[in-house]
């Protein structure tokens, strides 16, 4: 994407300052829109439960199948539940789950990738073969298999997200290590007699920050996608959970009577994922991480 950066994922560490990055994100219309969407959804997730006009599973028998109105902004479903309130509660669930899952996967993947890549040798080689094999199993299939093992607990989805995305992050982190390992500043640190931990976390990690930030944003978008898809398939979450995918699947049976109960959660997830993707693309440009 940028012509001056030739080595994979290496940029000067000073670019990575959260506030600067955020300001620059608002410099382009597409990434400004994406970032705003993400921020609005985060706010919704944060204060949603307080501003939701109805309870998440509150059923009003006299007000079933109502079209959107001032009383029910997104209408009500076949059970008389307020769709707007459920979408709000769903936002908190999906952002918390996807956010925490991505964070843990990035943390674990970074640690594994940095260590393994820096030390190299047989262990690194073997680990990468195992990761390659895991990546040969489609993410959704792996998630389905794992969910079968872990069972239908609430934390099951979290475990699955961490397990599925850690190898991917580890590979990315490792590629950064390999590209800077032989650089002068790493060798200088080694000559100074710095410890391995210092070199990995204080010298190498900062150069991996931009790449890892972009990768984290991408993983976040995929995690949202995965949680919604699993919800749609009815695996990993049970009704009456306000998972947007599950809401869409449930509303599909009543699509002719209550189309809004289907389209509102569908719209919510679409807008959120588009927002995250546009933000990730913006981050890639701001942080000058090469790639498509």
């Amino acid at each position: 994407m940028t012509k001056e950066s030739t080595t994979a994922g290496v940029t000067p560490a000073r670019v990575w300052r959260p506030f600067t990055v955020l300001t620059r994100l608002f410099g382009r219309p597409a990434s400004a829109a994406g970032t705003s969407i993400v921020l609005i959804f985060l706010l919704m997730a944060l204060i949603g439960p307080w501003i939701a006009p109805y309870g998440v599973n509150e059923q009003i028998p006299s007000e079933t199948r109502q079209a959107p109105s001032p009383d029910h902004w997104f209408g009500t479903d076949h059970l008389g539940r307020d769709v707007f309130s459920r979408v709000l509660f769903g936002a908190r669930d999906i952002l918390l789950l996807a956010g925490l899952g991505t964070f843990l996967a990035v943390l674990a993947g970074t640690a594994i990738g940095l260590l393994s890549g820096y030390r190299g040798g047989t262990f690194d080689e073997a680990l990468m073969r195992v990761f390659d094999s895991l990546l040969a199993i489609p993410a959704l299939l792996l998630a389905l298999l794992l969910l079968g093992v872990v069972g239908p607990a609430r934390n099951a989805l979290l475990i699955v997200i961490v397990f599925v995305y850690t190898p991917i992050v580890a590979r990315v982190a490792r590629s950064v290590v390999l590209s800077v390992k032989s650089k002068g500043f790493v060798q200088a640190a080694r000559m100074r007699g710095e410890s391995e931990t210092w070199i990995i976390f204080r010298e190498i990690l900062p150069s991996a920050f931009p790449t890892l930030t972009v990768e984290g944003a991408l993983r976040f978008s995929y995690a949202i996608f995965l949680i919604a898809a699993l919800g749609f398939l009815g695996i990993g979450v049970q009704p009456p959970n306000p998972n947007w995918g599950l809401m869409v699947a449930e509303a599909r049976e009543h699509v002719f009577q209550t189309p809004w109960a289907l389209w509102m959660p569908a719209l919510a997830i679409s807008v959120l994922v588009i927002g995250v993707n546009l933000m990730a693309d913006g981050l890639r440009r701001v942080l000058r991480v090469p790639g498509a």
Partner: protein
Amino acid sequence: MPRYVLRRLGFLLLTLLLTSSIIFAITQVLPGDVARVILGREAGEAALNSLREELGLNDPLPVQYLRWLGNFVQGDWGESFSTRTEVRPLVQQRLGNSLMLAAVTLGIAVPVGIALGVIAGLNENTWVDSVVNVSALSVVGLPEFVTGILLIEIFAFRLGFFPANSSIRPGTNFVEALPMLILPALTASLVLLGYISRMTRVGVIGEISKPYVRTARLKGLSRWSVTYRHVLRNALMPTITVIAISFGWLISGLIVVENVYNYPGLGRLMLFAIDRRDLPLLQAVAMLAVLAFAFANLAADLFYAYLNPKIRLQ
């Protein structure tokens, strides 16, 4: 070249071996007692034990794994717990369906994706580029169940062009199935379009600034001819990998799309197997998924090496 092919094949075998053991391990720790699944709730302990012995479930896990792998390689994929029939014909028939869907999807996504990518790349940093880029990013992010339901709403319910339900009968040939394949294929290609066009765009941008392109222009070739005859060959290299990886995804990753349209492909069979705890079926489908992915990658690597001698000699 032969040495390169051999080495890639070696890697492929190693990956398959590792993946098969991962799949076997995961299916082994799936909760549920196989003997009880087969015999039902009322079975006595003695009957359960003799069946376990018969199925070799009391043997150490590595022995079980090797026996399973040996049988799988020889084409004996076992009997399904839920349908009580041979797994292989069932899986093969679904594989056929998945291949049909994959063919139509690639037929839509590859030409359109490459065209969009080339247009965006040639107009780098103009409004054309932005429009293509933003729409690609948006479409890639949409979950298949949203785009699928939207396409059904428009093309099946409103316009009535295609059926909303794609549950084709076993043995339907490609031409008969085609009308039912269009909507699922369109849904799947929306996901691929974004990847293919973005990859192509990056490839084109990377090539277009190289000196040989200027030389070709200066010697009087038209812009179109330079793009088509010189730039594309080099620029499409990364796109080829994306297409190959997509093929693996199309064979086994279309679980959501197949579910939206009730299309009887491998993805829905997998969901069925997981739902019923049907281990032989699940293992067979998962292995097939991995095989498709691995061979698609191998094909991409070999094609790459064929185009670029530098890779072969490494």
